[in-house]
């Protein structure tokens, strides 16, 4: 994944950048399978790697496929990134180890979900029962955000020109699929 990331920084052809971005997300999805998050992997592969790539390609079709060639190299952003990364790595030294069953995250409410959700909700997939039942308000908030984003996209590019109207409705169609 890091290799793909560096290639993304170097590449100047925007079509290639978008394709690499899709590949990056797909790699992340397979990483989720390794870490036992199968539902997340499904969603990431379908929504993250599929719909996001389609949206980006549409934007490329509406704008331009080449990045401008001038490139002033400056050291300041790179230094800033290195310093921030060093501080973050220093911050991880206090974190629980990978896969540790005694980590604080596994102590609070998660055991209750694992033990009781089968009886209380009756769905074998715990992720589904938490998403739809215990934390249904989160999903309501998610739908609100998607509605706002759809309204924003329509307001921005929906009514500018007749040719653009067609594209705008396609973009929001992608949003509704995502929901």
């Amino acid at each position, binding site marked *: *994944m*890091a290799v793909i*990331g560096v290639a*993304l*920084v170097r590449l100047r052809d*925007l079509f290639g*950048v*978008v394709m690499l*971005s899709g590949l*990056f*997300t797909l790699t992340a999805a397979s990483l*989720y399978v390794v*870490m*036992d*998050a*199968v539902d*997340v992997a499904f*969603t990431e592969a379908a*929504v*993250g790697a599929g719909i996001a790539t389609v949206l*980006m390609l*549409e*934007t490329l079709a*509406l*704008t331009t496929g080449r*990045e*401008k060639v001038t490139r002033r190299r400056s050291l300041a*952003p*790179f230094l800033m*990134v290195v310093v921030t*990364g060093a501080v*973050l*790595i220093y911050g*991880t030294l206090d*974190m629980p*180890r*990978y*896969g540790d*069953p005694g980590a604080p*995250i596994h102590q609070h409410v*998660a055991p209750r*979900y*694992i033990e009781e959700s*089968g009886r209380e909700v009756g769905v074998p*997939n715990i*992720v589904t029962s938490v*998403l739809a039942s215990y*934390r249904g308000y989160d999903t309501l908030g998610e739908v609100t*955000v*998607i509605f706002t*984003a759809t309204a*924003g*996209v329509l307001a*921005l*590019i929906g009514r*500018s020109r007749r040719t*653009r109207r067609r*594209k705008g409705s396609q*973009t929001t169609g992608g949003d509704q699929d995502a*929901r």
Partner: protein
Amino acid sequence: MNVLGLYNYWIVVVLMMTGFYVVIAQNNLIKKVVGLNIFQVSVFVFYISMSKVKGGTAPILDPGIQVYGNPLPHVLILTAIVVGVATMALALALVVRIRHAYGTIEEDDIDAQEEEP
């Protein structure tokens, strides 16, 4: 050897800094959106890696299984992925509008056009 158990966080930090660098150092607006996407995926990986339990399986109930991964981060990230795509659609729509208004999606060109009257 104790410190090596933190490698998942280090991977996340490297990915996150790659995205951060793209956002602050690149001129092209679409590339900036891609950088934000990388940053976002790194946060997802961070959450999912926290939910992993050694020897556990996917959180789907089965009588023969005792140890499950933590389902709560999975739910949060499911929501976050969909929201992330919706906000990315909004950002790309903004890029399309900027291209209409200025005829370019390079940041320094836009700045130059802003400075001359």
